[in-house]
């Protein structure tokens, strides 16, 4: 754990000006700092040339962080990344990031083969509701790794599409043969709710930047039937699809998508077979 604290501070100093997915290909920091920097950077500043950041990480039992002069952010709050993670129904991980000295910064989150980037707000805060894709869930928040139990993941079937690129993607679920645009058609314009899933009444769609996750209860009020999934696509992307039908195994597929241009008149590509149908248990 001491590595996190140390490297967080060093990275702050390095102020790598790369955001999001590109963080993995960040330019190398100066040679004298390189030795202690893990391959997965913690914070990648959105803007170059920001002042150096000391950092503090909760859950760190590091002996002593680097001794740097105390810094204060805007509004007089102390600097340093404070990350908390907790799980709640329906198998959702809530991540909260606070760093008063890092407003507008990109933070790379990775979990079970997906990656996404959060941006902190003007106060250096960010909150995300991330559907868990494994139990126990291991999540890396800017290189800091959390492990949480998400026992209720077993109560849901879940599919996800995670992408980077200029593509516009929307995931649709048609519950029990629902017609397009009618109740039971879950899509970004009608995403359903966590409450529906917890009560066993239907599924919901989680919409994040470059990530969409559909969740359906494994033992819903109404038994029988299937949920069909489809993806509408324009533009190009590198994508990963993930399907969790039984809690034990997630199926991952890597895809390169080259759909019609988003600014052309061509209709979006409609892919109906990227995900298997989700079967709803019969009583």
């Amino acid at each position, binding site marked *: 754990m001491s590595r996190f604290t140390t490297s967080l501070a060093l990275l702050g100093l390095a102020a790598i000006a790369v955001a999001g997915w590109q963080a993995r290909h960040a330019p190398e920091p100066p040679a004298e700092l390189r030795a202690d920097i893990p391959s997965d950077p913690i914070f990648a500043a959105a803007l170059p040339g920001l002042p150096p950041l000391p950092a503090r990480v909760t859950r760190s039992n590091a002996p002593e962080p680097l001794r740097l002069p105390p810094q204060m952010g805007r509004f007089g709050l102390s600097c340093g990344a404070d990350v908390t993670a907790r799980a709640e129904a329906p198998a959702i991980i809530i991540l909260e990031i606070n760093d008063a000295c890092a407003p507008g910064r990109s933070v790379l989150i990775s979990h079970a083969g997906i990656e996404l980037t959060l941006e902190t707000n003007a106060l250096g805060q960010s909150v995300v509701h991330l559907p868990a894709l494994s139990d126990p869930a291991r999540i890396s928040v800017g290189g800091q790794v959390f492990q949480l139990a998400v026992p209720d993941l077993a109560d849901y079937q879940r599919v996800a599409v995670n992408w980077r690129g200029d593509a516009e993607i929307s995931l649709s679920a048609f519950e029990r*043969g629902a017609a397009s645009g009618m109740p039971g058609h879950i899509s970004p314009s009608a995403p359903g709710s966590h409450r529906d899933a917890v009560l066993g009444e239907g599924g919901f769609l989680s919409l994040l930047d470059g990530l969409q996750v559909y969740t359906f209860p494994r033992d819903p009020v109404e038994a029988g*039937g299937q949920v069909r999934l489809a993806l509408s696509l324009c533009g190009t992307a590198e994508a990963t699809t993930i399907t969790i039908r039984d809690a034990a195994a997630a199926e991952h597929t890597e*895809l390169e998508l*080259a*759909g019609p241009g988003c600014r052309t008149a061509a209709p979006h590509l409609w892919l*109906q077979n990227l995900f298997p149908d989700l079967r709803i248990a019969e009583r």
Partner: protein
Amino acid sequence: MRSLLRAVAATICLSTGAVFGQDVTLTSIDGGIELAGSLIAFDGEFYRVSSIYGPLTVSAEGVRCDGPGCPNLEAFVAEARFTGAAVIADRLLPELIETFALDQGFDLSRRIDAEGVTTFTMARADGSVAARFSVAPGTTDDAFLALLNDETDVALTLREPLSLEERAVDAAGGQDLSQRARVIALDALVAVTARSNPLSQIAPESLAALFAGEITNWADLGGPDAPIELHFPAASSGLAQAFESRVLPDGGTLAAGITRHDDPRDLSDAVSRDPLALGVATLSAVGNARALALAGPCGFAIEATPQTVKSEDYPLTAPLFVYTPNRRLPRLVREFLGFFETGMAERVIRRTGFVSQAIIRTPINAQGVRLANAIQAAGEETDLADLQRLAALMTGTARLSPTIRFSDGSSSFDTPSLSAISRLALAIEDGEFDGRTLVFVGFSDAAGSAAANLNLSRNRADSVRRAVMAAALAADLGAVSFRTAGFGEALPIACDTDDWGAAINRRVEIWLE
């Protein structure tokens, strides 16, 4: 020159004419023979060259290649285009390719383009590309057209070719199309309704009358006075054509006002939303709808299940076919086609909702309905002694899924029967039944006298036994015992009073003791 020509493996006729590539000169290793022309293709093992003698295929092993068109033998990538029925292209093939790549130790990547064509690239551990398969979803019609125009390497279809297509492809390719077919999995045509609809079974004749427009009201099927909303696969779909040729009366045309669907799952979903709807979908695509059993007038009903589809007890089976062109495909592509018959592929077939052709065993305790049917059908010509003999033989045995059927009054085998015989022979050769007894049990329909039917069923059972033993050439026939039995009309599984049922009842089952 002559000897080189004799060394040519096969001549190729391209229906679209040769695609002229770059010049090559092939010289036999001893330097004695030379063939010049432009290279059409290279499959890693064979050159296809357009020469003054026409297109020729020459083994790369025996010749040296010179000229600007010569391929790099080491960098060869096995390429194949798969075209046809979206049901196969989208649902089954990707999973088969994935499993094949995993089995071969290849790293698989896939790319979907704006037309919905997926390109699967298989790379070796060192990063070099071994194969590139492109999969274009479309219809069965597209598949046969692409085959005719030599625009595909593997055509994916949901029906056998129409005679017109067969004649055109045979004329272009110079070889019988049926020789280049293989069944990769099974499915079945099923009538579907909404789950809330109380109808549970339908007679094939009623189904025909519905889609021919002769029945239009639920009252004719014992329901309320309301019109029946019909749903049917798209005209270009192999399923539509299979249904029309097998269910509709001769030359029958479909009624007007039927809603058509490209994807059978869309059809099932549309039907599931409308309690007054009835459609024709497939077993693999019943989804949110409910499949109806096929019923005969005497009360027997046969449901489509993996067991009844494999044994063809359910009459409307719908195999998934692949057809290959009359030319050599790269070795890796041929290996992929061979992979379809492995146990690994069978798992994929089951997982994706289709029925594999693997032999399954149904134990006696799962055959209660059959025995009940036999008791119900017993009467003037089948007495208690017959039933007791039947029950005694059934005890402790399991029925194997391959079932041989016969046309009326004959003892000769049709194509599916030959395939069942060869699968059974293969299983015997593999020692699957070593130390066991295979009983060939013949049954007949009820037409004619019971005594004649008993004789006919015994003769059929014996002819199947002989055919299986003859086909199992490599088997240790001493390890398996063979017996035959005949029961005439004693164990009907469908109503004998119509042609559909009679055809199902004329059969030889294989039981394992």
